[in-house]
């Protein structure tokens, strides 16, 4: 084993830079801190602000991840959460995180960096190897964690076949919501994947030549269409479970937990229910059902796109849930 790998006990691979000549893994001494913020990167940002972590970080190649996996295996993921964005997935993560033995990673950027190594000519097998090695290194139990859950980015539904091959034993769910409500929410503040050309034609299947003439609303609807189609395509063959927003938060306890092979005690269920009283992404605010206000906000264009493009897919998902 290399000396570099030897020195990494207690360090976590918080970031992977893939714009450099060779991808660089950035390791930070993390201590006992849990990934409890609504997003993985929020926890990382806050940790990196500490003077020690800012100044002292190991930088290694990807192969050091693989060396570490051999000597310090971490947790095998117990469940993946895919989603169409703005559909309660953060709330589901926050509920799972209430159990002390759980580690929950919400949209960790290093996974996306590794998946996108295809653009640098890395083969599917290489990406699978590095994804598994990264997962092993990031999930080192630090406070007695025994089970690992990961919420992926909304566009990773396109990477489902590869992720399924990388983690064949990990059960997965796909969370969705009435597309009109998702579109209205995305209009207020679009996620990364809703920004034109953040995703490529290879991922979405939307012809690049057709993008410039689309309105912003139409582009977002097309992305949602691709996400829903992809989920529908993979659900059966890859043994996923689709869950509608309308069943949340209770379905985390009644549907997701059993699908993930997780049996919860009455006390754990109680703590989870208490968590749902708060807004997932702004924990200081109380959770407000907003379906009705979102319906009222929908423009003519949104209504038309939903009727023609998205509602049929949504209805198919509902019938298969």
């Amino acid at each position: 084993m290399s000396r570099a790998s030897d020195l990494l006990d207690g360090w976590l691979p918080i970031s992977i830079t893939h714009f450099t000549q060779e991808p660089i893994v950035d390791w930070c001494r993390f201590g006992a801190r849990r990934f409890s913020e609504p997003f993985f990167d929020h926890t990382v940002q806050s940790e990196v602000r500490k003077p020690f972590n800012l100044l002292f970080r190991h930088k290694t190649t990807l192969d050091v991840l693989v060396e570490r996996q051999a000597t310090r295996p971490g947790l095998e993921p117990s469940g993946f959460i895919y989603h169409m964005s703005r559909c309660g997935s953060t709330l589901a993560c926050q509920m799972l995180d209430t159990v002390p033995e759980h580690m929950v990673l919400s949209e960790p950027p290093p996974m996306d960096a590794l998946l996108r190594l295809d653009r640098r000519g890395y083969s599917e097998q290489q990406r699978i190897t590095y994804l598994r090695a990264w997962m092993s290194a990031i999930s080192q139990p630090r406070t007695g964690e025994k089970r690992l859950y990961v919420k992926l980015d909304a566009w990773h539904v396109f990477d489902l076949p590869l992720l399924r091959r990388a983690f064949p034993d990990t059960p997965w769910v796909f969370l969705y919501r009435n597309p009109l409500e998702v579109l209205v929410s995305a209009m207020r503040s679009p996620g990364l994947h809703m920004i034109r050309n953040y995703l490529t034609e290879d991922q979405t299947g939307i012809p690049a030549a057709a993008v410039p003439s689309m309105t912003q609303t139409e582009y977002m609807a097309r992305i949602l269409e691709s996400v829903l189609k992809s989920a529908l395509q993979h659900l059966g063959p890859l043994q996923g479970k689709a869950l509608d927003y309308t069943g949340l938060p209770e379905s985390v306890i009644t549907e997701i937990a059993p699908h993930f092979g997780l049996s919860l005690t009455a006390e754990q269920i109680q703590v989870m229910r208490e968590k749902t009283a708060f807004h997932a992404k702004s924990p200081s605010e109380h959770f407000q059902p907003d379906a009705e206000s979102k319906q009222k906000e929908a423009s003519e264009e949104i209504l038309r796109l939903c009727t023609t493009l998205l509602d049929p897919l949504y209805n198919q998902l509902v019938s298969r849930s």
Partner: protein
Amino acid sequence: MPTAPPNAAKLSLVFDPAGLQADLAKLGSNEWVAHFNTGFFSGDWSGAALRSVGGDGTKMYADTSHGDFANTALLQECRHLKAVIESFQCPLRSVRLLRLTAGSVIREHRDYDLGYDAGEVRLHVPVITNPQVEFYLNNRRFRMAEGECWYLDLNLPHRVQNRGATDRVHLVIDCQLNDWLRDLISQGEASLGEESSYEAFHRQVLEEPALQEELIGLTDQPAFIQRIMELAQQRGFSFMEDDVTAALQSARRNWMERNIV
């Protein structure tokens, strides 16, 4: 296809330090004007103009606006310096003597007004210096001796500490790049510099978990830096708080820019 220039190169031009120092001795204390950018340094960083827009001797900053550069009256009195300047076969812009007095420090900064690609480069000729002058470019230490002529990519972060007992004076020449100068730089002795004492300490911390334990819990930046200085001193390293501050700044910048292509 033109190759990219090195970060630093010692050029083949060499000048006699004794002559340059004789010229320097003629300068009275009133010839030195404090550097305009007071946020950049502590102590005394000042300059004397040898060539400037309109030949104005009070213009201390490297004027990059498009004006006509002319030698100042001061240069006419300094024949060795004048001979140095006349040996450059490229258009010259601002030419200055810059003085960093004993104990003074120039904080890490970048000179955005320059650039090989933009056709403007800055050359340094140390007139008088001492072994305790520490010049860092991109966190690498470069030792420049009296009478040598250096090309430096000052777009990169750089800082200077004069930890010696005597002043450091450099002749700083801003040149417009032409084929003569391009050749001079490409034929120069490219240098990677040396590992700084701070970098050696940094490497040791990454290799020693016990040293990490001493620092990890200090979340207050001044206390953290103070502890670093104590540990470094105990272990025989020699660097200044300024080196740590510069490293923190650069780490913050690298983190923020980590996803930028």
